[in-house]
């Protein structure tokens, strides 16, 4: 059955011959091509949306707004539904982070061991606030609510690797090492 090509990609195009629209767009944009490949590979997994979003972010470093349409169409969801899921979860980002991401635990156990002081130090040293990135794009500063190392507070994670019993001096060394790498 043939359908006319669709120019309006704004809503639930899955029900309106979306795959065709996706394949057309995928040919022109590498982001969309990657999203289309990942999404169509996992579309039959029950509850596929989170695994797909994780895979896209792992490959592209973020979930670019341009990929939302593709994912929505592949799963026969509305763009609003996919956008809603991406924005609900703090782990997903719509724009790329800096070259390195430092996450500082802000939860109670780390507060009991000087976590606030550590956070202040990081803000000052990086010259940006939480959710911000240094001017040179080198480091993004994020809060995290618990890394599960509460007996060794305060804790941070650099590019996903945890470091316990952190001090301002050790944090400076960690940042310097990351920037030098």
């Amino acid at each position, binding site marked *: 059955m043939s359908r006319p090509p669709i120019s309006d990609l704004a809503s639930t195009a899955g029900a309106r011959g979306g795959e065709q629209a996706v394949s057309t767009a995928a040919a022109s944009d590498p982001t969309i091509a990657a999203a289309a490949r990942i999404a169509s590979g996992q579309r039959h997994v*029950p*509850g*596929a*949306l*989170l*695994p797909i*979003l*994780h895979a896209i972010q792992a490959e592209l470093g973020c979930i670019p707004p341009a990929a939302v349409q593709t994912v929505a169409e592949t*799963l026969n969801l509305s763009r609003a*539904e996919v956008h*809603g*899921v991406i924005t*609900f*979860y*703090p*782990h*997903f980002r719509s724009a790329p982070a800096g070259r390195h991401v430092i996450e500082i635990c802000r*939860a*109670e*156990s*780390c*507060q*009991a*061991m000087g976590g606030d002081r550590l956070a202040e130090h990081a803000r000052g040293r990086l010259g940006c606030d939480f959710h911000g990135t240094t001017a040179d794009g080198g480091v993004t500063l994020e809060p*995290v*609510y*618990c*890394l*599960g*190392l*509460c*007996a*060794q*507070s305060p*804790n941070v*994670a650099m590019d*996903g*690797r*945890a*470091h*316990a*019993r952190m001090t301002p001096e050790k944090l400076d060394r960690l940042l310097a090492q990351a920037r030098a790498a």
Partner: protein
Amino acid sequence: MTVAPDARGAKESAMNAPVTLYVPRDTAALAVGADAVADAIERQAASRGLAVRIVRNGSRGLLWLEALVEVATPRGRVAYGPVQPEDVAGLFDSGWLAGGAHPLGHGPTEDIPYLKNQERLTFARVGVIDPLSPADYERHGGLAGLRRALDMDAAAIVAEITASGLRGRGGAAFPAGIKWKTALEAQGEQKYIVCNADEGDSGTYADRLLMEGDPYVLIEGMAIAGLAVQATHGYIYVRSEYPQAIAVLQEAIARARRAGWLGDDILGRGRRFDLEVRVGAGAYICGEETSLLESLEGKRGVVRAKPPLPAVAGLFGRPTVINNVITLASVPGILDKGAAHYRDYGVGRSQGTLPFQLAGNLRQGGLVEKAFGLTLRELLYDFGGGSASGRPLRAVQVGGPLGAYLPESQWDIPLDYEAYAKAGAMIGHGGLVAFDDTVDMTRMARFAMEFCAVESCGKCTPCRIGSTRGVEVIDRIRAGGADRERQVHLLRDLCDTMLSGSLCALGGMTPYPVMSALDHFPEDFGAQPTEAPAQAA
């Protein structure tokens, strides 16, 4: 991972039998340099011409001693810690491969009082075995529970769990047997077992230690749950902040499949159960069971109204047993040793053991698995060794961010679910965070409201709006002035609304830390000595 003997290994051992050392690969050890320690041991051994075999075990839970290295000697495993890479040469110099004395030495691991005085049932193998070795797991009693369950009918397995008195260890303490019975009796072609491994509470890490240190016990527990309620598929929902746990579980599941412990023909008995890991995405609320199910379905983690209970209509609308990691990991032991063995630990209706997690400002933070009924004071001082800062301890938050702050006058209440509920507190997942006398309790109360505002799923008004209003009211109290008393009244009123009007525990229990701070530490809120009521929410 176990090192397979190869030609080279055999030749070396002919000259010099390798000594086995254990260097944990738990995140708690990796975060203080365990990989570098393992490398340093390899290098030192090679340069000295000594044969060593390094096993990467889980953590013993003596977290102030990480990286804790153990040496297998003829008189048992001997502990050294905390070991840094630069300590390794000195340890070799003092003959640690034969258990030699060293300032970092602690003697035989099993004799360290912190460990010796525990009752490790669920954590019996954690830190002892190679977490990914199926052979190690079986050698240390693994699979006995599953084998017994395969000989029982579903109702008998459920009855065994009910008789054990096991209650949900995630915090709500709902009897596991009753949940399972509901799911067993629910009609449905497809049923699911879901493991809640979204351990987001500050001060808790027992789930993580278990998943990284003994993943097969969780897999076995879920398979038994599958047999008990006739579910054939399971999901472990792990938070994205736990990458090491995710990697260990995925590898363990793959190996369990190859060993025939999972799949279409469990242990050759014709029964089916398979399992997969799903990764969360940083939302605290997804630790709430219905929100977790929404997330697994690929949606925003918005809380569902109950009923229907998940056991009747859960994941994808199917009957679903959803239990915490520790609950499911306690199941194999109960099936193996019998309900009575487990039930005989504990007090009153709090039966069995709970892995308490000592955190915050304590000298000796770590995991203490004990029968219910001991006191906070014993945990804080006998195990925890008092504050890390050397200052007096002042407040202890028990049960995560939604748990009450307990002042010293409450540290002698026996740790059991009912006694804590009576005191306006909760044991929850067994995490405790200690604060010294520098803590400002108005800040902690404010943080509780702020955390609720950040993490609220937004479905119900008391939680979504109440938490933001709560931050504002506490800010006005902190500012002091003539209006203070009216604002305190307003805060109590607001907490009352959140407590009774919220859909789930996030909004419904955020008042616990807030009200306990206000009631037990009124001086921080600028109160005159006469005005504090006795009881928290």
